[in-house]
């Protein structure tokens, strides 16, 4: 079954067209990385998949039109990790993660012990249990991001949508997060769709990559198919040298700066 299926999807902001004729299918249990330069439509695509924006063309989640779901159902189906978490009020990390359990209990009741357990496990997985009781705004960018991922996990979703999840993370935590995603995908069959900007990391962790260019799908396939010197030249306009890592057998980019 297709977790996500988009058929001839187009979208424009006011009069600025962003996506043109996107047709994309993500099977259940797939791990897909969306690549592309800024403005290519990555975030917009994720927003349409997560039900925030409505484009022209059909979007189906698990073979049901996205518009037929109500919001609580959607929130149990998928979770979204956004780029910039910004919270205006003093909540602790634990409280933020617990909010992910919102649709699992009555709005008039408090969280159950099971909810607390799920939250605790999620924080443990993202190595954020240590600052559970600290206020979110006191944490570093990377720590905040891990809390947000924990919240997404607490929703116990089937699909995880991430928008540049490693943007603020240091190297160690970047690797940690991607390894976690890989594990969740392999052990629990979690469908993962992530917008990424680091091509090398994308190549290492994601079995399938979709390269967007000017709102269209330029290339869709395995890293070795998508990350070619010609593709990079066409889409990003820079010259690179692709070499294959002997250990992982994945393509890695080497940049050739014009000045050196």
């Amino acid at each position, binding site marked *: 079954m297709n977790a996500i299926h988009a058929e001839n999807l187009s979208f424009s902001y006011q009069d600025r067209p962003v996506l043109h004729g996107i047709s994309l299918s993500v099977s259940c249990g797939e791990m897909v990385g969306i690549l592309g330069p800024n403005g290519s439509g990555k975030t917009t695509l994720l927003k349409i998949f997560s039900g925030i924006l409505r484009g022209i063309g059909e979007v189906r989640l698990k073979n049901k039109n996205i518009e037929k779901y109500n*919001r609580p159902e959607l929130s149990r189906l998928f979770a979204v990790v956004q780029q910039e978490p910004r919270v205006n009020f003093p909540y602790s990390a634990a409280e933020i993660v617990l909010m992910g359990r919102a649709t699992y209990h009555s709005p008039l009741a408090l969280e159950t012990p099971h909810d607390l357990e799920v939250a605790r496990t999620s924080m443990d997985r993202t190595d954020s249990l240590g600052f559970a009781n600290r206020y979110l705004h006191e944490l570093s960018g990377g720590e905040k991001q891990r809390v947000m991922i924990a919240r997404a996990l607490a929703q116990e979703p089937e699909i995880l949508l991430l928008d540049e999840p490693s943007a603020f993370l240091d190297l160690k935590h970047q690797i940690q997060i991607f390894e976690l995603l890989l594990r969740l995908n392999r052990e629990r069959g979690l469908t993962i769709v992530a917008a990424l900007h680091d091509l090398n990391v994308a190549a290492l962790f994601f079995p399938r990559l979709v390269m967007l260019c000017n709102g269209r799908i330029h290339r869709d396939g395995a890293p070795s198919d998508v990350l070619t010197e010609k593709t990079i030249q066409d889409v990003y306009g820079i010259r690179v040298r692709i070499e294959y890592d002997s250990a992982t057998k994945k393509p890695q980019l080497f940049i050739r700066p014009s000045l050196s």
Partner: protein
Amino acid sequence: MKVLDRKKMILVNSALLILLVLSAAACTLLGPVRIDLSEALKNIFSSTADAEILLRARLPRVLLGIAIGGGMAVCGVVLQALLANPLACPQMLGVSGGASLGGILGLIFFPNWLLPLAGGRLGEISWIPLAAFLGALFSMVLVYRFSLFHGRLHPYHILLSGVILNSFIAAVIMFLNSIVDFYQAQGLLFWLMGSLSTRAYVTVGFIWFYILLGFLWLWSKGLALNLITLGEDAAMHLGVEPGALQRQIFIASSLMIGAMVSVSGMIGFVGLMVPHVMRLLIGSDHRLLLPASFLAGGIFLCWADTLARVLLAPAELPVGIVTAFFGGPFFLFLLYREGRRSLAL
């Protein structure tokens, strides 16, 4: 993991409720005039001075103060969530300004010749609070229309239209202040600075019913309010329909504020300060913050009114002056002590 649990809910709310009852009792017994409590209680149903002071002059005020303090505090909490701004307060919506202006216009332009008609019965209806409420409704509709885009109320637009409407109303009130006579000017001051002076149990009962209803409804939205502070997109992903929630909260709080200002004038500071103080003390989870703020707001205004009666006895200060005068420095003190550690401003 320290999060909100039943124990905390029950503990905090019970403590505040006890404090509220004690405050209500104390404020009914305190005042610029000394009364003999045993005398008063003995003659509770007959008309002696002490009994009348207790039952007719003080108790209605105390009860009204609790309702309005609680209502203002609760509206402050939800507006801060709605506008995603810790500095939001009920006065910002323009509704209280509209209510004041409506009341002032009613005061100045009321056709007094109408009153003797219908056998003098017309005089028994409180026309001025009705005029104030109409003013509140008008402002609410105005700000609503200016902020509604594609089914969503944009916090930025609400704030902006509210501020502009307030400035405009302030200008009109200043103008009216310059053309009214001395006696009407006193009435103007009531609207601008507030007063809990009342003897009408009917009014108090009505306001209690109204505010309690509003408070309970808003309390039921506590979880959704938590989620909406994460941002509209994040809230959507967690099951909330932000557009509908925003509209409902805006209308509910506007109606509450309109009613409160119509009855007691503009009493500021409660809606800004009490939510913050409670956040500093018990956290930002709205499921606890709402009832706690309601109770704390009631306690605060109850005492503020007592001070208003006592400070410059026999004169009565407008209660809005007391709330600002004592509330401000106390809040700054609290902020200094704990705010830098925990307030996300």
